[in-house]
């Protein structure tokens, strides 16, 4: 989803400095939420910004997701401050994508999805997605509370 397309004939210098003249505003709502326009109501300025920044933004996001995925292979996960940051970012992106697929548009939708807590009631794709979303929400919230506490003790 976030992996940029490999293209033949791409300018190697442009690729090296992260420039990408072929980017476009994403059509998939979830991808657009991950890689949003930087200027409201100005497609041209946003596109110019995408050409300069989108490739490295994708790499940042993929890096955090990969780091979290690698941790999942371990028997026991102990997070460093940097690892915790990657996990919180990865969980947030996962939640943003699930929220788009679940059509969460406002706080009311979010509350409705939040009601789904019982695995025995997961009968279709939507209710299963809602359970995964709620689990990821709980995990991220618990992690971020611990991160906030460690920020506090460092002050």
């Amino acid at each position, binding site marked *: 989803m976030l992996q940029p397309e490999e293209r033949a004939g791409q300018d190697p210098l442009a690729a090296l400095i992260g420039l990408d003249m072929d980017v476009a505003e994403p059509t998939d709502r979830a991808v657009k939420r991950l890689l949003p326009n*930087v200027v409201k109501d100005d497609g041209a300025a946003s596109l110019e910004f995408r050409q300069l920044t989108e490739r490295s933004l994708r790499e940042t996001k993929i890096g955090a997701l990969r780091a979290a995925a690698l941790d999942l292979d371990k028997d026991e996960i102990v997070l460093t401050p940097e690892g915790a940051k990657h996990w919180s970012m990865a969980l947030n992106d996962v939640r*943003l994508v699930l929220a788009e697929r679940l059509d969460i548009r406002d706080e009311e939708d*979010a509350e409705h999805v939040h009601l789904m807590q019982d695995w025995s009631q997961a009968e279709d794709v939507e209710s299963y997605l809602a359970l995964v979303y709620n689990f990821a*929400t709980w995990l991220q*919230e618990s992690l*971020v*509370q611990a991160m*906030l506490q460690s920020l506090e003790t460092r002050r």
Partner: protein
Amino acid sequence: MTLSVALGPDTQEGTRTGTAEATDSLTAPDIPWNLVIWNDPVNLMSYVSYVFQSYFGYSESKANKLMMEVHRKGRSIVAHGSKEQVERHAVAMHGFGLWATVEKASGGPGGNSGKSGGPGQGKGKRG
């Protein structure tokens, strides 16, 4: 934003910052761009506050005040600076998954009249 199972941070309503401190940083005429964070129903209040504290180095009370402004008013100006500075912040915010945009300080609601200029200004090629 959404408040999850664990308790969210205090809203710090009682310690609202006075106008003196706010105007100090908001009206500097040579700082014409704003970084705006928009509300969404997914990002956790705690996470938004964490990002404001860890990335910008804001105090807990300032971070929570800005976070609540995003939540209640739908948007908040969380940083100012040159176009390049706020754009760099915007990419970092997008990296964290926050919905950020940049705007001229004289532009949107809540902004102030810094250097006046037509809408076409400031879009020149960079680098």
